[in-house]
């Protein structure tokens, strides 16, 4: 909480007082009764005591200035502010303007009263690392799968209420982007190239199916999960999703139009002249596959909460092994 210190009326007829000296500096610890400053009126010079304890957060009127009675000359805050009081804060002025001969006749814009919104008085040291939110806001966030940390990232003041949850509706991805991890590799592409031609000729399968199968198997091995949906995005063509059952032969991999978030995404750049692309936050583990000469360049990006570092590396390992020896898959 902030307490304004005003120029006190020290005499019955006093209009203003001159600050002779400040006895405290900004940042000083103030106790009630401490001498803050010395003020000279038309009749006398008096010491002025603090009426609040706390820290001297800001001084608006320097030594030697003549200040009208009632004007805010400084602020005492309950907590150490570390200079948090914005520079733009200026004291509220009494209605009477004291015009010095040199002051221009242009009216200054109405100064804002130096008070901080009440929602800002959270002392971050007192939250024990918790995010402060109302019980209802926390419950709704949990039910809807919202991470309140997103609101912290946005810099919104705590505590959060139900009305703050509307921020989740306007955010771009389905959930707040977390930390992403990635791994990159370059492998000889000859075997996979031949394999692609083989399945195309013999089984009339596009090479995309092989990519989906290899990625899915590597992912299934690491996480031990069964049917997964792999989305293959070739940038220029329509995105296709495949359902890959566990231990499926290539012919069992079918296209799906299930409207759910895929488990894996493959960004296929093999027909383009560049080999890696990242166009937004990775919501699920994403393989980017590009061609560079005779080699294939593979990048696997994943949200850290989908794959940890070891899983990421193992998943990549499985995938590039299959690229190098694609026939092993058929066995």
């Amino acid at each position, binding site marked *: 909480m902030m307490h304004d210190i005003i120029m006190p009326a020290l005499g019955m007829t006093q209009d203003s007082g001159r600050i002779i000296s400040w006895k405290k500096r900004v940042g000083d610890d103030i106790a009630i009764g401490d001498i803050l400053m010395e003020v000279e009126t038309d009749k006398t010079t008096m010491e002025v005591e603090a009426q609040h304890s706390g820290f001297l957060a800001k001084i608006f009127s320097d030594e030697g200035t003549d200040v009208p009675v009632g004007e805010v000359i400084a602020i005492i805050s309950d907590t150490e502010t570390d200079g948090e009081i914005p520079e733009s804060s200026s004291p509220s002025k009494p209605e009477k303007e004291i015009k010095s001969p040199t002051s221009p006749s242009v009216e200054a814009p109405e100064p804002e009263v130096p008070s901080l919104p009440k*929602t800002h*008085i959270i002392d971050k040291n007192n*939250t024990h690392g918790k995010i*402060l939110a*109302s019980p*209802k806001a926390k*419950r709704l966030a949990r039910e809807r799968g919202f991470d309140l940390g997103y609101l912290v990232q946005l810099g919104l003041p*705590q*505590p959060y209420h139900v009305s703050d949850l509307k921020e989740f509706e306007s955010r771009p991805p389905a959930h707040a982007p977390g930390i992403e991890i990635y791994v990159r590799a370059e492998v000889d592409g000859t075997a996979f190239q031949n394999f692609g031609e083989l399945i195309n000729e013999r089984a009339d399968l596009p090479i995309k199916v092989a990519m989906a199968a290899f990625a899915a198997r590597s992912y299934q091995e690491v996480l031990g999960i069964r049917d997964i949906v792999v989305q293959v995005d070739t940038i220029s063509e329509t995105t296709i999703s495949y359902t890959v059952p566990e231990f499926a032969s290539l012919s069992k991999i079918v296209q799906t139009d299930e409207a759910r978030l895929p488990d894996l995404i493959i960004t296929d750049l093999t027909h383009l002249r560049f080999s890696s692309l990242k166009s937004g936050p990775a919501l699920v583990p994403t393989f980017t596959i590009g061609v560079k000469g005779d080699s294939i360049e593979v990048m696997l990006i994943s949200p850290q909460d989908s794959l940890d570092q070891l899983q990421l590396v193992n998943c990549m390992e499985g995938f590039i092994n299959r690229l190098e020896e694609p026939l092993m898959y058929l066995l």
Partner: protein
Amino acid sequence: MDREITHSQAVNEAIAEEMRRDSTVILLGEDVAEAGTPFKVLSGLVEEFGTERVIDTPIAEPGFMGIAVGAAMTGMRPIVDIMFGDFLFLIMDQLCNQAAKTHYMSGGKLNVPLVVRTNLGATRRSAAQHSQSLHALVAHIPGLKVALPATPYEAKGLLKTAIRDDNPVVIFEDKLSYQMKGNVPEEEYLIEFGQANLLREGNDVTLIGTSSMVQTCVAASDLLAEEGISAEVMDPRTIVPLDERAILESVRKTSRAVVVDEGHQNYGITAEIAARISEKAFYHLDAPVIRLGAMDVPVPFSPALEDLTVPTPELVAEKALSICRGELVHDA
């Protein structure tokens, strides 16, 4: 058919009707017969029912309260008039140790069907010993029911129910509202205990007011409407039993609550209701539950100071607005 009568007329009618209906109903207390109480609530009763049933007692609350408890155990239905709520302190043993516990301690063999009629409310310039609102004291004692009528309609309906109840009931009238008029049907009616009255429907905050604070909450809801806040106003009518279901249902809808009562705030009715909300509707709360009771000081005699001790519509609206805006009411 509805007609407008005052709060005192409503009380008077309730007693007269019950005394006509049931000859075991008697009325006793200070100045209840000749003077008809300082608030003139009981005028005319002694003329109709005689001094055998409308009994002026000496100024000795413990004595006549003891008489009433004995009479109730042995078949009468006494209505005890405690002139000022502040005098409850004088009858604590008879009320709390005897009347409240006799049914239990006699293994259900004895009933104590008595009513203590008294009042609450400050701002009548009556100083600290005649201005207290002490309903929390008796609400704390198991075995006592506590009714807090807020309108002439409630004053009559709740008092009649109290007289017919087989257990001790303490009913507090707001002494400032004795001259307040309100619609009261001519036909006989009773108001069931434990049924809250929803006065205003709203979506943003629930204002729960008792007795004198019901109208304060209604006025606050008008102020809030000007700020675009829609407040629900609820009057529990009886605090023992308390219509917890209705209160929780409302708070689950609005997510916010301000509880207003004229008893002292510390350890008071507001604290009890706020605690129940926090405990049982916790996951529906979007703001801390606010208590607004009378200031925790002896009620001052100075009018200027006395008026400051009681919650006002402005104060209720300010607190409600503050939680509706998500402001921190207390440091986190």
